[in-house]
């Protein structure tokens, strides 16, 4: 999977590395600001109330 992505990035090794970093940052941002906030309320360990 990662090898496939690496081969498909255009440009020199330096450019590829830069693009890879951008991709990693984009995935992290997506996880931190979209996926995790959505997933979190469905997880059980955040219950702090009695009900």
């Amino acid at each position, binding site marked *: *999977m990662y090898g496939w992505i690496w081969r498909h990035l255009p440009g020199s090794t330096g450019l590829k590395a830069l693009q890879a970093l951008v991709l990693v940052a984009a995935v*992290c941002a997506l*996880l931190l600001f979209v996926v995790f906030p959505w*997933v979190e309320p469905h997880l059980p*360990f*955040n219950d*702090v109330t*009695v*009900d």
Partner: protein
Amino acid sequence: MGDPDGYPDQDRTEHRERVPELVGASRPAVAPRPTGAHRAPDEPDEEPAAAPPAREPLWRGVVRGTGELLITAGLVLLLFVVYELYVTDYLTGQRQDELTQELREEWAQPPAPGEAPQLRQVEIGDAFGVLRIPRLGEDYARVILEGTSETELSQGPGHYEGTAMPGEPGNVALAGHRVGKGSPFLELDAMQPGDPIVVETADSWFVYRVLGDPATGDLDADPSGIPGLQIVRPTDIDVIAPTPNQAASAPTGSYLTLTTCHPRFSARERLIIHARLEGTALAKAELPDGPPALFEG
């Protein structure tokens, strides 16, 4: 120029480029035109790189792909832990700063004519007070909001809807996160009998003291029989009853109850702190810097 068919001009030129290249790769036998035609026509560089995976057995690709997926899943889970422990703290901290500023501005404004500030209606999601617990830090101050859904709790400690408001007879019940979201109640198990829990509202300070015997430090030795600290099942709603642990009782005093999850990182049980109001409301006009209880330590 000797073209059998007239139109696919571009394709033809690229095929022509490919042929010498494949010859140059010294594999003339394995370079039939049709193979070249199957590949993406715009990536001639692809040819040498794509050749080895084609010869690799399928199972190796599957094993490698599975391994990469597992490593990725591990990294995502690690990132989630970082998110829970640090990112939510940061986001909640920022939100707390905003709420503090909004609340200060709101309190600085004179009440509308004919409306006493303490009677101002509190709606779900409204910030209405500041909680101070010197045991948890000299500068420990958290804005509390009305309501205990995740929307409120992700911003700060939440006030159980329908329980008493600060100073009223009954039980002021507050819930807060133990780990993450600013971890307002992380160290709640360190509370000792007699520790002040101070609630600041628009015009008053309310000093509550953790139940128990301050002389011996025994949290269970309060004359009222209500423990200062207890660990209960999540379904034990009596802990936030008007008189703690007495279902459907009339209020017998002014209590404050804090609830959070227990043990840390788990939601198996609830950690509960009970406190009782000391004296009455202290006017902020007389004590602008806070009641003496805040500076005991």
